[in-house]
């Protein structure tokens, strides 16, 4: 688009208020667009409509009490956030975790990642105007939710991980359901590719749209699939393996150009990789307790701090915890991936069409409550 874009005549510019109530801003994002015709001159995202003060809440709660909050920041990958927070505190306070619990967590976290990506896939096509793939994805996602519901008892905000293990043990039914799901998901790829990936309209809507160069990604701290789409194989699961991720064989999918189509392909491939991780974890799943029964009831990490990074569905997420030795964190900061991923849009939007802006916003996969915290 950029070559067609010419410097505008100032008088022709008008402001369009995209959101906060708009069908495709995924929550309560508001973007002030300065437009020349349908070309975007300047974009100014306004966030904060969903600010709940999680960081302040953390200071007034014990670590255990903050645990349910963690899955409410990014409601699409709640279990991953939950997992990350529990891992951070465990490493901070030195809580032992049984092997089986580690595998259970990885399995559930990867299932959650697939469900998050599936939802993204559906809503992204819906942003582009195709309604039907959305429902197909929900059909598949419903399966994951059923599986997770079976073990966690909840469908969205799981609060499943505990310091020293997980809430509830897996049963045989769970394992067979998961294996059946993976098989089913793999059988659906052909349909998805025929319906969406190969579709000429879809390709034209996404190819060369919203290109994020590696340098731009670095400047804005873009992480996750968006970063991998521009060709940098950076994944916390590989670079700083936490839990048992170093025992699994999976690859980091990367793109080449960093456009919306690459981001799409990377996410689709990531789902397949998650399936592989789950399969390996199910094969290796050891017997044993699912929770460390002797874990202290009240977690009191020693004085100091920890910065724990993990890979959520949207990229590198980190909990920064400072403890004064009491059961309450002195400071809890959450580094969220969507923050940088959204901020880069001020740069990427420039010179694109309104329709492209929607496509780019969708392809970035932001979850607004995660940014607002």
């Amino acid at each position, binding site marked *: 688009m950029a070559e067609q874009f010419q410097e505008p005549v100032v008088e022709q510019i008008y402001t369009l208020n995209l959101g906060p109530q708009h069908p495709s801003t995924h929550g309560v994002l508001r973007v002030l667009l300065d437009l020349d015709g*349908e070309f975007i001159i300047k974009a100014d995202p306004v966030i904060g409509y969903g600010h709940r003060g999680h960081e302040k809440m953390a200071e007034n709660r014990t670590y255990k009490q903050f645990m349910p909050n963690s899955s409410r920041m990014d409601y699409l990958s709640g279990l991953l956030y939950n997992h990350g927070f529990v891992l951070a505190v465990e490493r901070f306070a030195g809580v032992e975790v049984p092997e089986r619990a580690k595998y259970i967590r990885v399995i559930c976290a990867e299932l959650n990642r697939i469900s998050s990506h599936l939802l993204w896939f559906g809503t992204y096509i819906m942003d582009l105007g195709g309604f039907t793939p959305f429902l197909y994805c929900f059909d598949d996602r419903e399966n994951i939710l059923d599986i997770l519901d079976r073990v966690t008892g909840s469908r969205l905000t799981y609060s499943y991980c505990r310091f020293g293990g997980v809430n509830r043990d897996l049963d045989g039914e769970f394992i067979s359901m998961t294996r059946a799901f993976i098989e089913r998901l793999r059988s659906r790829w052909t349909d998805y590719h025929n319906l969406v990936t190969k579709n000429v*309209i879809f390709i034209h809507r996404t190819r060369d749209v919203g290109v994020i160069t590696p340098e731009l990604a670095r400047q804005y701290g873009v992480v996750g699939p968006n970063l991998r789409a521009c060709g940098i194989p950076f994944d916390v699961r590989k670079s700083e393996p936490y839990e048992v991720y170093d025992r699994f064989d999976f690859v980091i999918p990367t793109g080449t150009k960093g456009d919306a189509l690459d981001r799409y392909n990377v996410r689709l491939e990531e789902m397949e990789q998650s399936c592989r991780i789950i399969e390996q974890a199910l094969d290796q799943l050891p017997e044993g307790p699912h929770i460390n029964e002797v874990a202290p009831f009240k977690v009191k990490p020693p004085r100091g701090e920890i910065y724990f990074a993990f890979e959520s569905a949207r990229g590198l997420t980190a909990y920064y915890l400072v403890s004064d030795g009491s059961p309450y964190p002195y400071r809890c900061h959450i580094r969220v991936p969507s923050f940088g991923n959204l901020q880069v849009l001020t740069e990427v939007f420039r010179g694109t069409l*309104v329709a492209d802006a929607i496509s780019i916003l969708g392809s970035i996969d932001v979850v607004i409550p995660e940014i607002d915290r």
Partner: protein
Amino acid sequence: MGSEMASDWIRIIVGLIIVLAFSQLNALFLVWLERKVAGHIQLRYGPMEVGPHGILQTIADGIKLVGKELITPLSADWKLFVIAPVLVFMPVLVAFLVLPFDENLVIRDMNLGVLLIFAFSTLSVLAILAGGWAANNKYALLGAIRSVAQNVAYEIPLLLAVLSVALMTQSLRFSEIVAAQCRVWFIFLQPVAGLIFLICATAETNRAPFDIPEAESELIAGFHTEYSGMRFGLFFLAEYTNMFIVSAVATALFFGGWHGPFGFSFGLPGIVWFLLKVYILLFVIMWVRWTFPRVRFDQLMNFSWKVMLPLSLLNLIVTAAVLKFI
């Protein structure tokens, strides 16, 4: 002479009443059908609660729409704003006058019938422009502008496609065009024109994947963002009635109108064949809508000017040449 005039008038008045009743009921049915088709494509039921399989759902929705407050935004140009939904519906009704439902079931078989339909269906874009403009909303205005550009772009290949049919029959009268297809439908003789016509007709009626004037994920609802209640309902009904008309025209021009396939009628009356084909085409339009993502505005224009227009011109030239030398 006098009695003939009178019978003509009676015919027109009765026809108009039937048209009004039919078009409304048909639009209601189409809305239901669309929701059912969408539902089953998406592995869900669609409306199920009101009436058997939800057949009365749209009537309930219509009653709800009638009961709703008609909101006129303060900053709107209210005269235009109020008149636009009426304007959008009028040309739709006129088009019914010349549709050949059966050999003798035409309200008025004009010798310029084809031209009349396209002349009037172009008018609806004016109403959309008026509505979008009068609402004084940027999304509505963007939608209206897109709609005008799109209609202008797709009108030309559409007419060129029709023209190649008209060349073959040497007539713009529907009854003659249909009569010429009693053995072979024109879709087999003019496949390119037929395809162009279908694509352009989808674009003309603002249906997905060409629904950029409405584009709910970009422009919220495009030109009817600010409309509420039955004013919105009129836009909605007009859209579905328009769909019916383009399908009917396509049936008459390319799919043999009231004729059965290859001259076999299987004992069915013409109107059954006609409506059957129309509803199959309508189903295809819905099927397309629930399959594809929306094209981008500039791509839509490119597609029209760079693909559709050259193709339709080429088709016209080839048709003319073939007719000349054979």
